Protein backbone atom coordinates (compact mmCIF):
# COMPACT_ATOMS: atom_id res chain seq x y z
CA UNK A 1 0.00 0.00 0.00
CA UNK A 2 1.36 3.42 -0.84
CA UNK A 3 0.51 6.95 0.14
CA UNK A 4 -1.69 8.14 -2.70
CA UNK A 5 -1.19 11.84 -2.20
CA UNK A 6 2.32 12.66 -3.29
CA UNK A 7 1.59 13.55 -6.92
CA UNK A 8 -1.62 15.45 -6.38
CA UNK A 9 -1.91 19.15 -7.13
CA UNK A 10 -2.07 21.41 -4.12
CA UNK A 11 -5.66 22.53 -4.60
CA UNK A 12 -6.81 18.93 -4.63
CA UNK A 13 -4.91 18.31 -1.42
CA UNK A 14 -6.61 21.24 0.27
CA UNK A 15 -9.99 19.71 -0.50
CA UNK A 16 -8.83 16.33 0.81
CA UNK A 17 -7.48 17.93 3.94
CA UNK A 18 -10.84 19.63 4.48
CA UNK A 19 -12.61 16.32 4.11
CA UNK A 20 -10.17 14.66 6.55
CA UNK A 21 -10.64 17.48 9.06
CA UNK A 22 -14.41 17.15 8.76
CA UNK A 23 -14.23 13.41 9.38
CA UNK A 24 -12.15 13.99 12.51
CA UNK A 25 -14.40 16.83 13.68
CA UNK A 26 -17.46 14.61 13.33
CA UNK A 27 -15.67 11.90 15.34
CA UNK A 28 -15.97 9.48 12.43
CA UNK A 29 -13.30 6.94 11.50
CA UNK A 30 -10.50 7.29 8.97
CA UNK A 31 -10.18 4.06 7.01
CA UNK A 32 -7.11 2.69 5.19
CA UNK A 33 -8.13 3.87 1.71
CA UNK A 34 -9.05 7.37 2.86
CA UNK A 35 -6.71 10.24 2.25
CA UNK A 36 -4.76 11.25 5.35
CA UNK A 37 -2.01 13.78 6.01
CA UNK A 38 1.49 12.31 6.03
CA UNK A 39 2.03 13.48 9.61
CA UNK A 40 -1.06 11.56 10.74
CA UNK A 41 0.07 8.45 8.91
CA UNK A 42 3.61 8.60 10.30
CA UNK A 43 2.51 9.37 13.83
CA UNK A 44 0.03 6.51 13.75
CA UNK A 45 2.55 4.03 12.35
CA UNK A 46 4.91 5.01 15.14
CA UNK A 47 2.16 4.70 17.77
CA UNK A 48 0.79 1.39 16.51
CA UNK A 49 4.24 -0.12 15.95
CA UNK A 50 5.35 0.90 19.42
CA UNK A 51 2.26 -0.73 20.81
CA UNK A 52 2.84 -3.90 18.76
CA UNK A 53 6.48 -4.05 19.87
CA UNK A 54 5.36 -3.64 23.49
CA UNK A 55 3.06 -6.65 23.18
CA UNK A 56 5.83 -8.80 21.75
CA UNK A 57 8.61 -7.69 24.10
CA UNK A 58 6.05 -7.83 26.90
CA UNK A 59 5.81 -11.59 26.41
CA UNK A 60 9.31 -11.97 27.82
CA UNK A 61 9.12 -10.80 31.46
CA UNK A 62 6.21 -13.11 32.21
CA UNK A 63 7.36 -15.72 29.75
CA UNK A 64 10.38 -16.14 32.00
CA UNK A 65 8.06 -17.81 34.53
CA UNK A 66 6.22 -20.10 32.12
CA UNK A 67 8.49 -23.06 32.72
CA UNK A 68 8.45 -22.62 36.50
CA UNK A 69 4.84 -21.62 37.17
CA UNK A 70 3.99 -23.20 40.55
CA UNK A 71 0.77 -25.00 39.58
CA UNK A 72 -0.61 -26.44 36.37
CA UNK A 73 -3.55 -24.08 36.53
CA UNK A 74 -1.26 -21.06 36.84
CA UNK A 75 0.90 -22.41 34.04
CA UNK A 76 -2.15 -22.70 31.76
CA UNK A 77 -3.37 -19.21 32.65
CA UNK A 78 0.04 -17.71 32.04
CA UNK A 79 0.61 -19.55 28.77
CA UNK A 80 -2.80 -18.41 27.53
CA UNK A 81 -1.93 -14.86 28.48
CA UNK A 82 1.47 -14.82 26.81
CA UNK A 83 -0.14 -16.37 23.76
CA UNK A 84 -2.76 -13.59 23.74
CA UNK A 85 0.06 -11.07 23.69
CA UNK A 86 1.50 -12.65 20.56
CA UNK A 87 -1.99 -12.41 19.07
CA UNK A 88 -2.22 -8.74 20.04
CA UNK A 89 1.12 -8.12 18.37
CA UNK A 90 -0.25 -9.75 15.23
CA UNK A 91 -3.39 -7.60 15.09
CA UNK A 92 -1.40 -4.46 15.72
CA UNK A 93 1.25 -5.18 13.10
CA UNK A 94 -1.64 -5.84 10.72
CA UNK A 95 -3.15 -2.47 11.63
CA UNK A 96 0.23 -0.85 10.94
CA UNK A 97 0.38 -2.63 7.58
CA UNK A 98 -2.90 -0.96 6.57
CA UNK A 99 -0.95 2.29 6.86
CA UNK A 100 1.73 1.07 4.46
CA UNK A 101 4.23 -0.31 6.99
CA UNK A 102 5.74 -3.79 6.73
CA UNK A 103 5.92 -6.16 9.72
CA UNK A 104 9.42 -7.45 9.00
CA UNK A 105 10.69 -3.91 8.57
CA UNK A 106 9.08 -2.80 11.83
CA UNK A 107 10.64 -5.80 13.60
CA UNK A 108 14.03 -4.83 12.21
CA UNK A 109 13.55 -1.28 13.48
CA UNK A 110 12.68 -2.63 16.94
CA UNK A 111 15.74 -4.84 17.01
CA UNK A 112 17.99 -2.05 15.78
CA UNK A 113 16.66 0.23 18.52
CA UNK A 114 15.09 2.65 16.00
CA UNK A 115 11.60 2.16 17.40
CA UNK A 116 10.67 1.98 21.05
CA UNK A 117 8.49 -0.27 23.16
CA UNK A 118 7.03 0.37 26.59
CA UNK A 119 9.89 0.93 29.03
CA UNK A 120 8.08 -1.11 31.70
CA UNK A 121 9.29 -4.33 30.08
CA UNK A 122 12.89 -3.43 30.80
CA UNK A 123 12.48 -4.41 34.43
CA UNK A 124 13.12 -7.99 35.58
CA UNK A 125 10.52 -10.37 37.02
CA UNK A 126 12.16 -11.56 40.23
CA UNK A 127 9.42 -13.66 41.82
CA UNK A 128 6.10 -15.24 40.86
CA UNK A 129 4.33 -12.33 42.53
CA UNK A 130 5.68 -10.20 39.68
CA UNK A 131 3.41 -12.13 37.33
CA UNK A 132 0.43 -11.05 39.41
CA UNK A 133 1.59 -7.46 39.77
CA UNK A 134 2.18 -7.17 36.04
CA UNK A 135 -1.38 -8.36 35.53
CA UNK A 136 -2.85 -6.02 38.09
CA UNK A 137 -0.81 -2.83 37.70
CA UNK A 138 0.92 -3.03 34.33
CA UNK A 139 -2.06 -4.45 32.46
CA UNK A 140 -4.27 -2.13 34.49
CA UNK A 141 -2.25 0.89 33.36
CA UNK A 142 -2.29 -0.43 29.82
CA UNK A 143 -6.09 -0.66 29.98
CA UNK A 144 -6.34 2.93 31.23
CA UNK A 145 -4.12 3.98 28.34
CA UNK A 146 -5.80 1.85 25.75
CA UNK A 147 -9.53 1.88 26.43
CA UNK A 148 -9.79 5.47 25.13
CA UNK A 149 -8.03 4.25 21.97
CA UNK A 150 -11.04 2.06 21.19
CA UNK A 151 -12.32 5.45 19.97
CA UNK A 152 -9.17 6.22 17.98
CA UNK A 153 -9.93 8.12 14.78
CA UNK A 154 -8.14 5.39 12.79
CA UNK A 155 -10.62 2.56 12.21
CA UNK A 156 -8.36 -0.52 12.10
CA UNK A 157 -6.52 0.58 15.24
CA UNK A 158 -9.76 1.33 17.09
CA UNK A 159 -11.17 -2.09 16.20
CA UNK A 160 -7.97 -3.89 17.21
CA UNK A 161 -8.07 -2.04 20.53
CA UNK A 162 -11.59 -3.20 21.32
CA UNK A 163 -10.55 -6.83 21.14
CA UNK A 164 -7.25 -6.22 22.88
CA UNK A 165 -8.87 -4.35 25.76
CA UNK A 166 -11.29 -7.20 26.38
CA UNK A 167 -8.43 -9.65 26.67
CA UNK A 168 -6.33 -7.26 28.75
CA UNK A 169 -9.12 -6.90 31.26
CA UNK A 170 -9.20 -10.67 31.58
CA UNK A 171 -5.44 -10.72 32.17
CA UNK A 172 -5.70 -8.00 34.74
CA UNK A 173 -8.37 -9.84 36.59
CA UNK A 174 -6.24 -12.99 36.62
CA UNK A 175 -3.24 -11.06 37.92
CA UNK A 176 -5.27 -9.58 40.74
CA UNK A 177 -6.75 -12.97 41.56
CA UNK A 178 -3.25 -14.49 41.79
CA UNK A 179 -2.23 -11.74 44.22
CA UNK A 180 -5.37 -12.25 46.31
CA UNK A 181 -4.58 -15.96 46.51
CA UNK A 182 -0.96 -15.28 47.46
CA UNK A 183 -2.03 -12.79 50.14
CA UNK A 184 -4.16 -15.54 51.68
CA UNK A 185 -1.16 -17.90 51.59
CA UNK A 186 2.01 -17.95 53.66
CA UNK A 187 3.80 -14.97 55.22
CA UNK A 188 6.54 -15.52 52.67
CA UNK A 189 4.05 -15.20 49.85
CA UNK A 190 2.63 -11.98 51.29
CA UNK A 191 6.14 -10.58 51.50
CA UNK A 192 6.71 -11.54 47.85
CA UNK A 193 3.60 -9.62 46.82
CA UNK A 194 4.55 -6.48 48.76
CA UNK A 195 8.07 -6.60 47.38
CA UNK A 196 6.77 -6.91 43.84
CA UNK A 197 4.37 -3.98 44.35
CA UNK A 198 7.24 -1.90 45.73
CA UNK A 199 9.36 -2.57 42.67
CA UNK A 200 6.65 -2.10 40.02
CA UNK A 201 4.64 0.86 41.35
CA UNK A 202 6.81 3.73 40.13
CA UNK A 203 7.72 2.19 36.78
CA UNK A 204 3.99 1.56 36.22
CA UNK A 205 3.19 5.24 36.80
CA UNK A 206 5.84 6.08 34.20
CA UNK A 207 3.93 4.00 31.63
CA UNK A 208 1.66 6.99 31.07
CA UNK A 209 4.58 8.90 29.59
CA UNK A 210 6.27 12.15 30.51
CA UNK A 211 4.37 14.95 32.27
CA UNK A 212 2.14 16.99 29.99
CA UNK A 213 4.51 19.94 29.90
CA UNK A 214 7.18 17.66 28.42
CA UNK A 215 4.95 15.83 25.99
CA UNK A 216 5.21 17.96 22.86
CA UNK A 217 3.19 15.68 20.55
CA UNK A 218 0.16 15.34 22.78
CA UNK A 219 -1.72 18.39 21.43
CA UNK A 220 -1.42 17.33 17.79
CA UNK A 221 -2.32 13.70 18.61
CA UNK A 222 -5.38 14.81 20.53
CA UNK A 223 -6.42 17.08 17.66
CA UNK A 224 -6.14 14.09 15.34
CA UNK A 225 -8.19 11.91 17.65
CA UNK A 226 -5.44 9.33 18.05
CA UNK A 227 -4.96 10.25 21.68
CA UNK A 228 -7.93 11.03 23.88
CA UNK A 229 -6.55 12.12 27.26
CA UNK A 230 -3.28 13.66 28.38
CA UNK A 231 -0.60 11.62 30.13
CA UNK A 232 -1.16 13.29 33.47
CA UNK A 233 -4.93 12.88 33.33
CA UNK A 234 -4.59 9.16 32.75
CA UNK A 235 -1.92 8.81 35.43
CA UNK A 236 -4.09 10.56 38.01
CA UNK A 237 -7.06 8.41 37.13
CA UNK A 238 -4.95 5.27 37.49
CA UNK A 239 -3.67 6.30 40.91
CA UNK A 240 -7.20 7.13 42.07
CA UNK A 241 -8.45 3.71 41.05
CA UNK A 242 -5.45 1.74 42.31
CA UNK A 243 -5.38 2.94 45.91
CA UNK A 244 -8.66 1.27 46.96
CA UNK A 245 -7.63 -1.90 45.12
CA UNK A 246 -4.37 -1.98 47.08
CA UNK A 247 -6.36 -1.61 50.29
CA UNK A 248 -8.57 -4.58 49.41
CA UNK A 249 -5.48 -6.59 48.60
CA UNK A 250 -3.71 -5.56 51.79
CA UNK A 251 -0.60 -4.01 50.27
CA UNK A 252 0.80 -0.49 50.35
CA UNK A 253 2.38 1.64 47.64
CA UNK A 254 5.94 2.84 48.27
CA UNK A 255 5.03 6.53 48.36
CA UNK A 256 4.92 8.42 51.69
CA UNK A 257 3.29 11.38 49.94
CA UNK A 258 0.33 9.36 48.68
CA UNK A 259 -2.70 10.99 50.29
CA UNK A 260 -6.32 11.71 49.44
CA UNK A 261 -7.03 15.38 48.78
CA UNK A 262 -10.69 16.05 49.67
CA UNK A 263 -10.47 19.42 47.91
CA UNK A 264 -9.82 17.90 44.48
CA UNK A 265 -11.28 14.46 45.06
CA UNK A 266 -7.98 12.94 43.87
CA UNK A 267 -4.99 11.27 45.47
CA UNK A 268 -1.83 13.39 45.66
CA UNK A 269 1.30 11.39 44.95
CA UNK A 270 5.06 11.90 45.07
CA UNK A 271 7.39 12.99 42.30
CA UNK A 272 8.36 10.45 39.67
CA UNK A 273 12.03 9.91 38.93
CA UNK A 274 12.06 11.09 35.33
CA UNK A 275 15.83 10.69 35.15
CA UNK A 276 15.31 6.97 35.60
CA UNK A 277 12.59 7.03 32.96
CA UNK A 278 14.98 8.68 30.49
CA UNK A 279 17.70 6.18 31.28
CA UNK A 280 15.40 3.20 30.74
CA UNK A 281 13.81 4.60 27.57
CA UNK A 282 17.31 5.41 26.38
CA UNK A 283 18.33 1.77 26.63
CA UNK A 284 20.02 1.75 30.04
CA UNK A 285 17.34 -0.12 31.98
CA UNK A 286 18.15 -3.40 33.74
CA UNK A 287 16.81 -5.64 30.96
CA UNK A 288 16.91 -3.61 27.71
CA UNK A 289 19.83 -5.52 26.23
CA UNK A 290 18.42 -8.90 27.23
CA UNK A 291 14.99 -8.18 25.77
CA UNK A 292 16.32 -7.05 22.41
CA UNK A 293 18.92 -9.82 22.26
CA UNK A 294 16.21 -12.45 22.61
CA UNK A 295 14.05 -10.83 19.94
CA UNK A 296 17.08 -10.61 17.68
CA UNK A 297 17.95 -14.27 18.26
CA UNK A 298 14.38 -15.37 17.49
CA UNK A 299 14.70 -13.58 14.15
CA UNK A 300 18.27 -14.47 13.25
CA UNK A 301 18.39 -18.08 14.44
CA UNK A 302 15.23 -18.92 12.52
CA UNK A 303 15.73 -17.04 9.27
CA UNK A 304 16.20 -20.40 7.58
CA UNK A 305 12.67 -21.41 8.66
CA UNK A 306 11.09 -18.39 7.01
CA UNK A 307 13.21 -18.93 3.91
CA UNK A 308 12.09 -22.55 3.77
CA UNK A 309 8.42 -21.61 4.05
CA UNK A 310 8.83 -19.05 1.28
CA UNK A 311 10.69 -21.51 -0.98
CA UNK A 312 8.07 -24.20 -0.35
CA UNK A 313 5.22 -21.82 -1.12
CA UNK A 314 6.91 -20.79 -4.38
CA UNK A 315 7.41 -24.43 -5.44
CA UNK A 316 3.86 -25.43 -4.62
CA UNK A 317 2.10 -22.27 -5.70
CA UNK A 318 -1.40 -23.05 -6.86
CA UNK A 319 -1.06 -26.68 -5.82
CA UNK A 320 -3.15 -26.11 -2.73
CA UNK A 321 -0.43 -27.53 -0.50
Amino acid sequence: MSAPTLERPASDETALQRQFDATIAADHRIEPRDWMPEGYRKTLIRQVAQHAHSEIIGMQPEGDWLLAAPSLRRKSVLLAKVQDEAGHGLYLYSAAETLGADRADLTDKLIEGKQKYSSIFNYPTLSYADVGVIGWLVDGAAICNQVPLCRSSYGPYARAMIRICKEESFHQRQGYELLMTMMRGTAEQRAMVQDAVDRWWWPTLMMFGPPDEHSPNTAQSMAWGIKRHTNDELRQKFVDMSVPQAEVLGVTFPDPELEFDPGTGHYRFGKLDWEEFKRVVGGQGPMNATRLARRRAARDDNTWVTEAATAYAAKHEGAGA
Partner: protein
Amino acid sequence: MVHEETVYEALVNAHDEGHWAFGTGFDEPLAGVDTTVPDGIDPADLGAYCLMLGDDALVLAQRLTQWITNAPELEEEVAIGNIGLDLLGQARLLLARGGSVGVLGRSRQLATDTIPDEDALAYFRDADEFRSTALVEVENGDFARTLVRLLVAASVRLAVLARLRDSRDPVLAAIATKGVKELTYHRDHAARWVLRLGDGTAESHRRAQDGVEAVWPLLADLFTATDVETRLAAAGVAVDPADVRDEVRAVLTQVLERATLAVPDWPADAPPRGRLGEHGPELTELLDTLQGLARQHPAATW
Protein backbone atom coordinates in the same frame (compact mmCIF):
# COMPACT_ATOMS: atom_id res chain seq x y z
CA MET B 1 -18.29 -3.34 24.44
CA VAL B 2 -15.67 -2.02 26.83
CA HIS B 3 -16.76 0.82 29.07
CA GLU B 4 -13.97 3.26 29.42
CA GLU B 5 -14.74 4.42 32.91
CA THR B 6 -15.31 1.09 34.58
CA VAL B 7 -13.03 -1.65 33.31
CA TYR B 8 -10.17 -1.05 35.70
CA GLU B 9 -12.25 0.42 38.45
CA ALA B 10 -14.59 -2.57 38.63
CA LEU B 11 -11.75 -4.96 39.35
CA VAL B 12 -12.35 -5.32 43.05
CA ASN B 13 -16.01 -6.26 42.78
CA ALA B 14 -16.03 -7.97 39.38
CA HIS B 15 -17.42 -11.45 39.81
CA ASP B 16 -19.42 -11.63 36.63
CA GLU B 17 -17.66 -14.40 34.72
CA GLY B 18 -19.68 -13.58 31.61
CA HIS B 19 -17.82 -10.45 30.69
CA TRP B 20 -14.37 -11.98 30.44
CA ALA B 21 -13.37 -12.76 26.89
CA PHE B 22 -12.65 -16.45 27.37
CA GLY B 23 -14.32 -17.17 30.68
CA THR B 24 -12.12 -18.20 33.55
CA GLY B 25 -12.36 -21.93 33.06
CA PHE B 26 -8.97 -23.18 34.06
CA ASP B 27 -10.19 -24.65 37.31
CA GLU B 28 -10.61 -28.19 38.64
CA PRO B 29 -10.19 -30.39 35.62
CA LEU B 30 -12.59 -33.14 36.73
CA ALA B 31 -15.15 -30.93 38.50
CA GLY B 32 -18.62 -32.51 38.33
CA VAL B 33 -17.39 -35.74 36.74
CA ASP B 34 -18.32 -39.13 38.20
CA THR B 35 -14.95 -40.71 38.89
CA THR B 36 -16.20 -44.13 40.01
CA VAL B 37 -14.02 -46.90 38.60
CA PRO B 38 -16.08 -49.43 36.58
CA ASP B 39 -16.24 -53.02 37.89
CA GLY B 40 -13.39 -55.35 37.14
CA ILE B 41 -10.78 -52.62 36.65
CA ASP B 42 -7.81 -52.41 38.99
CA PRO B 43 -7.63 -48.76 40.13
CA ALA B 44 -3.86 -49.01 40.57
CA ASP B 45 -3.47 -50.07 36.92
CA LEU B 46 -5.86 -47.39 35.71
CA GLY B 47 -4.01 -44.72 37.67
CA ALA B 48 -0.63 -45.89 36.42
CA TYR B 49 -1.91 -45.76 32.85
CA CYS B 50 -3.23 -42.22 33.34
CA LEU B 51 0.20 -41.18 34.54
CA MET B 52 1.81 -42.61 31.39
CA LEU B 53 -0.44 -40.57 29.14
CA GLY B 54 -0.50 -37.54 31.44
CA ASP B 55 3.26 -37.37 31.88
CA ASP B 56 3.84 -37.52 28.12
CA ALA B 57 1.52 -34.55 27.70
CA LEU B 58 3.03 -32.58 30.57
CA VAL B 59 6.63 -33.11 29.51
CA LEU B 60 5.94 -32.30 25.85
CA ALA B 61 4.01 -29.17 26.86
CA GLN B 62 7.02 -28.08 28.88
CA ARG B 63 9.35 -28.67 25.93
CA LEU B 64 7.12 -26.75 23.53
CA THR B 65 6.80 -23.90 26.01
CA GLN B 66 10.56 -23.42 25.73
CA TRP B 67 9.87 -22.02 22.26
CA ILE B 68 7.63 -19.25 23.55
CA THR B 69 9.29 -15.87 22.81
CA ASN B 70 11.85 -17.72 20.67
CA ALA B 71 9.70 -18.95 17.76
CA PRO B 72 10.42 -18.13 14.11
CA GLU B 73 7.21 -16.15 13.53
CA LEU B 74 4.48 -14.65 15.71
CA GLU B 75 1.96 -17.01 14.10
CA GLU B 76 4.12 -19.85 15.38
CA GLU B 77 4.19 -18.39 18.90
CA VAL B 78 0.41 -18.57 18.82
CA ALA B 79 0.32 -22.09 17.34
CA ILE B 80 2.87 -23.52 19.75
CA GLY B 81 1.08 -21.81 22.61
CA ASN B 82 -2.15 -23.47 21.50
CA ILE B 83 -0.62 -26.91 21.29
CA GLY B 84 1.09 -26.45 24.65
CA LEU B 85 -2.21 -25.40 26.23
CA ASP B 86 -4.01 -28.39 24.77
CA LEU B 87 -1.37 -30.75 26.11
CA LEU B 88 -1.37 -29.09 29.51
CA GLY B 89 -5.13 -29.49 29.59
CA GLN B 90 -4.81 -33.18 28.77
CA ALA B 91 -2.11 -33.58 31.41
CA ARG B 92 -4.27 -31.95 34.05
CA LEU B 93 -7.22 -34.21 33.29
CA LEU B 94 -5.13 -37.36 33.22
CA LEU B 95 -3.16 -36.57 36.37
CA ALA B 96 -6.39 -35.65 38.14
CA ARG B 97 -7.84 -38.98 36.99
CA GLY B 98 -4.76 -40.76 38.35
CA GLY B 99 -5.20 -38.94 41.64
CA SER B 100 -8.92 -39.71 41.76
CA VAL B 101 -8.17 -43.44 41.81
CA GLY B 102 -5.52 -43.01 44.48
CA VAL B 103 -2.33 -43.31 42.45
CA LEU B 104 -0.22 -40.62 44.03
CA GLY B 105 3.00 -42.40 44.96
CA ARG B 106 5.29 -40.45 47.24
CA SER B 107 3.94 -37.13 46.01
CA ARG B 108 1.12 -36.90 48.52
CA GLN B 109 3.55 -37.17 51.44
CA LEU B 110 5.58 -34.23 50.15
CA ALA B 111 2.77 -31.95 49.02
CA THR B 112 0.57 -30.26 51.62
CA ASP B 113 -3.14 -31.05 51.71
CA THR B 114 -4.20 -27.85 50.00
CA ILE B 115 -2.30 -28.80 46.84
CA PRO B 116 -4.61 -30.57 44.37
CA ASP B 117 -3.74 -34.05 43.13
CA GLU B 118 -2.77 -32.86 39.66
CA ASP B 119 -0.14 -30.57 41.18
CA ALA B 120 1.01 -33.09 43.77
CA LEU B 121 1.70 -35.44 40.86
CA ALA B 122 3.26 -32.87 38.56
CA TYR B 123 5.38 -31.07 41.13
CA PHE B 124 6.16 -33.53 43.90
CA ARG B 125 7.19 -36.71 42.11
CA ASP B 126 10.84 -37.34 41.31
CA ALA B 127 11.98 -38.45 37.88
CA ASP B 128 11.87 -42.15 38.77
CA GLU B 129 8.12 -41.87 39.39
CA PHE B 130 7.46 -40.29 35.99
CA ARG B 131 6.08 -42.59 33.29
CA SER B 132 6.86 -40.48 30.20
CA THR B 133 8.80 -41.74 27.19
CA ALA B 134 12.19 -40.52 25.99
CA LEU B 135 10.52 -39.22 22.82
CA VAL B 136 8.98 -36.28 24.70
CA GLU B 137 11.84 -35.82 27.15
CA VAL B 138 14.80 -35.10 24.88
CA GLU B 139 15.84 -31.52 24.19
CA ASN B 140 14.05 -29.62 21.43
CA GLY B 141 17.05 -29.06 19.21
CA ASP B 142 16.32 -26.66 16.35
CA PHE B 143 12.90 -25.87 14.94
CA ALA B 144 13.10 -28.78 12.49
CA ARG B 145 13.86 -31.36 15.14
CA THR B 146 11.15 -29.90 17.38
CA LEU B 147 8.55 -30.26 14.65
CA VAL B 148 9.66 -33.77 13.65
CA ARG B 149 9.36 -34.81 17.28
CA LEU B 150 5.96 -33.18 17.49
CA LEU B 151 4.85 -34.99 14.34
CA VAL B 152 5.89 -38.34 15.80
CA ALA B 153 4.48 -37.67 19.25
CA ALA B 154 1.17 -36.34 17.92
CA SER B 155 0.81 -39.24 15.48
CA VAL B 156 1.34 -41.85 18.19
CA ARG B 157 -0.87 -40.09 20.69
CA LEU B 158 -3.65 -39.49 18.20
CA ALA B 159 -3.67 -43.18 17.24
CA VAL B 160 -3.86 -44.19 20.90
CA LEU B 161 -6.50 -41.67 21.95
CA ALA B 162 -8.66 -42.44 18.90
CA ARG B 163 -8.95 -46.02 20.22
CA LEU B 164 -9.34 -44.88 23.82
CA ARG B 165 -12.60 -43.16 22.92
CA ASP B 166 -14.10 -46.64 23.38
CA SER B 167 -12.40 -47.28 26.72
CA ARG B 168 -14.49 -48.95 29.40
CA ASP B 169 -13.43 -46.19 31.75
CA PRO B 170 -15.85 -43.40 30.85
CA VAL B 171 -13.53 -40.71 32.21
CA LEU B 172 -10.67 -41.88 30.05
CA ALA B 173 -13.02 -42.18 27.07
CA ALA B 174 -14.19 -38.59 27.57
CA ILE B 175 -10.63 -37.28 27.91
CA ALA B 176 -9.71 -39.15 24.72
CA THR B 177 -12.66 -37.76 22.79
CA LYS B 178 -11.61 -34.22 23.62
CA GLY B 179 -7.96 -35.00 22.94
CA VAL B 180 -8.54 -36.49 19.49
CA LYS B 181 -9.79 -33.16 18.15
CA GLU B 182 -6.77 -31.38 19.56
CA LEU B 183 -4.24 -33.92 18.38
CA THR B 184 -5.63 -33.96 14.88
CA TYR B 185 -4.66 -30.30 14.70
CA HIS B 186 -1.26 -30.88 16.32
CA ARG B 187 -0.38 -33.62 13.85
CA ASP B 188 -1.58 -31.55 10.93
CA HIS B 189 0.39 -28.51 12.07
CA ALA B 190 3.57 -30.54 12.51
CA ALA B 191 3.10 -32.37 9.20
CA ARG B 192 2.72 -29.09 7.31
CA TRP B 193 5.95 -27.82 8.78
CA VAL B 194 7.81 -31.05 8.02
CA LEU B 195 6.64 -30.70 4.41
CA ARG B 196 7.76 -27.08 4.20
CA LEU B 197 11.11 -27.77 5.80
CA GLY B 198 11.82 -31.02 3.96
CA ASP B 199 10.84 -29.58 0.60
CA GLY B 200 11.94 -25.99 1.28
CA THR B 201 15.58 -24.95 0.92
CA ALA B 202 18.75 -27.07 0.96
CA GLU B 203 19.42 -25.94 4.52
CA SER B 204 15.93 -26.68 5.80
CA HIS B 205 16.03 -30.08 4.09
CA ARG B 206 19.33 -30.91 5.78
CA ARG B 207 18.01 -29.78 9.16
CA ALA B 208 14.76 -31.70 8.76
CA GLN B 209 16.67 -34.84 7.78
CA ASP B 210 18.96 -34.38 10.80
CA GLY B 211 15.86 -34.03 12.93
CA VAL B 212 14.42 -37.25 11.55
CA GLU B 213 17.69 -39.10 12.18
CA ALA B 214 17.76 -37.83 15.77
CA VAL B 215 14.13 -38.63 16.54
CA TRP B 216 13.75 -42.02 14.82
CA PRO B 217 15.70 -44.10 17.39
CA LEU B 218 13.22 -42.83 20.00
CA LEU B 219 10.49 -44.84 18.30
CA ALA B 220 12.06 -48.03 19.67
CA ASP B 221 10.38 -48.09 23.08
CA LEU B 222 7.02 -46.58 22.13
CA PHE B 223 5.29 -49.74 20.97
CA THR B 224 6.21 -52.19 23.70
CA ALA B 225 3.42 -52.67 26.21
CA THR B 226 4.05 -52.61 29.94
CA ASP B 227 2.27 -55.22 32.05
CA VAL B 228 -0.17 -52.51 33.10
CA GLU B 229 -1.10 -51.78 29.48
CA THR B 230 -1.41 -55.47 28.66
CA ARG B 231 -3.78 -56.08 31.55
CA LEU B 232 -5.84 -52.96 30.89
CA ALA B 233 -5.98 -53.60 27.14
CA ALA B 234 -7.37 -57.08 27.86
CA ALA B 235 -9.99 -55.45 30.10
CA GLY B 236 -11.05 -53.00 27.37
CA VAL B 237 -9.66 -49.97 29.20
CA ALA B 238 -6.33 -49.19 27.54
CA VAL B 239 -4.65 -49.53 24.16
CA ASP B 240 -1.83 -51.98 23.54
CA PRO B 241 0.72 -49.67 21.90
CA ALA B 242 1.78 -52.45 19.52
CA ASP B 243 -1.66 -52.12 17.93
CA VAL B 244 -0.95 -48.61 16.67
CA ARG B 245 2.52 -49.29 15.29
CA ASP B 246 1.51 -49.93 11.68
CA GLU B 247 -0.83 -46.97 11.53
CA VAL B 248 1.81 -44.61 12.92
CA ARG B 249 4.43 -46.02 10.58
CA ALA B 250 2.18 -45.47 7.57
CA VAL B 251 1.44 -41.86 8.54
CA LEU B 252 5.07 -40.98 9.20
CA THR B 253 6.29 -42.66 6.03
CA GLN B 254 3.73 -40.80 3.95
CA VAL B 255 4.66 -37.40 5.42
CA LEU B 256 8.40 -37.95 5.10
CA GLU B 257 8.14 -39.16 1.52
CA ARG B 258 6.01 -36.19 0.51
CA ALA B 259 8.54 -33.96 2.27
CA THR B 260 11.30 -35.54 0.09
CA LEU B 261 13.00 -36.84 3.24
CA ALA B 262 14.66 -40.23 3.53
CA VAL B 263 12.76 -42.58 5.85
CA PRO B 264 15.26 -44.25 8.19
CA ASP B 265 15.04 -47.92 9.09
CA TRP B 266 12.38 -48.52 11.70
CA PRO B 267 14.14 -49.35 14.98
CA ALA B 268 13.65 -52.73 16.64
CA ASP B 269 11.24 -52.77 19.59
CA ALA B 270 12.95 -52.15 22.92
CA PRO B 271 11.77 -52.37 26.54
CA PRO B 272 9.53 -49.40 27.57
CA ARG B 273 12.08 -47.89 29.93
CA GLY B 274 10.41 -44.52 30.40
CA ARG B 275 7.11 -46.16 31.23
CA LEU B 276 8.92 -48.11 33.95
CA GLY B 277 10.53 -45.02 35.46
CA GLU B 278 13.96 -45.14 33.80
CA HIS B 279 14.89 -41.78 32.33
CA GLY B 280 17.88 -39.89 31.05
CA PRO B 281 19.30 -36.70 32.60
CA GLU B 282 17.10 -34.53 30.35
CA LEU B 283 14.01 -35.33 32.38
CA THR B 284 15.73 -34.54 35.69
CA GLU B 285 16.80 -31.16 34.33
CA LEU B 286 13.36 -30.45 32.96
CA LEU B 287 11.76 -31.31 36.28
CA ASP B 288 14.21 -29.15 38.22
CA THR B 289 12.87 -26.13 36.35
CA LEU B 290 9.24 -27.21 36.36
CA GLN B 291 9.11 -28.12 40.05
CA GLY B 292 11.65 -25.78 41.66
CA LEU B 293 9.37 -22.96 42.78
CA ALA B 294 6.50 -25.19 43.91
CA ARG B 295 8.91 -27.27 46.02
CA GLN B 296 10.53 -24.20 47.56
CA HIS B 297 7.14 -23.27 49.00
CA PRO B 298 5.38 -26.55 49.78
CA ALA B 299 2.90 -24.85 52.13
CA ALA B 300 1.99 -22.11 49.69
CA THR B 301 -1.27 -21.82 47.76
CA TRP B 302 -1.21 -20.46 44.24
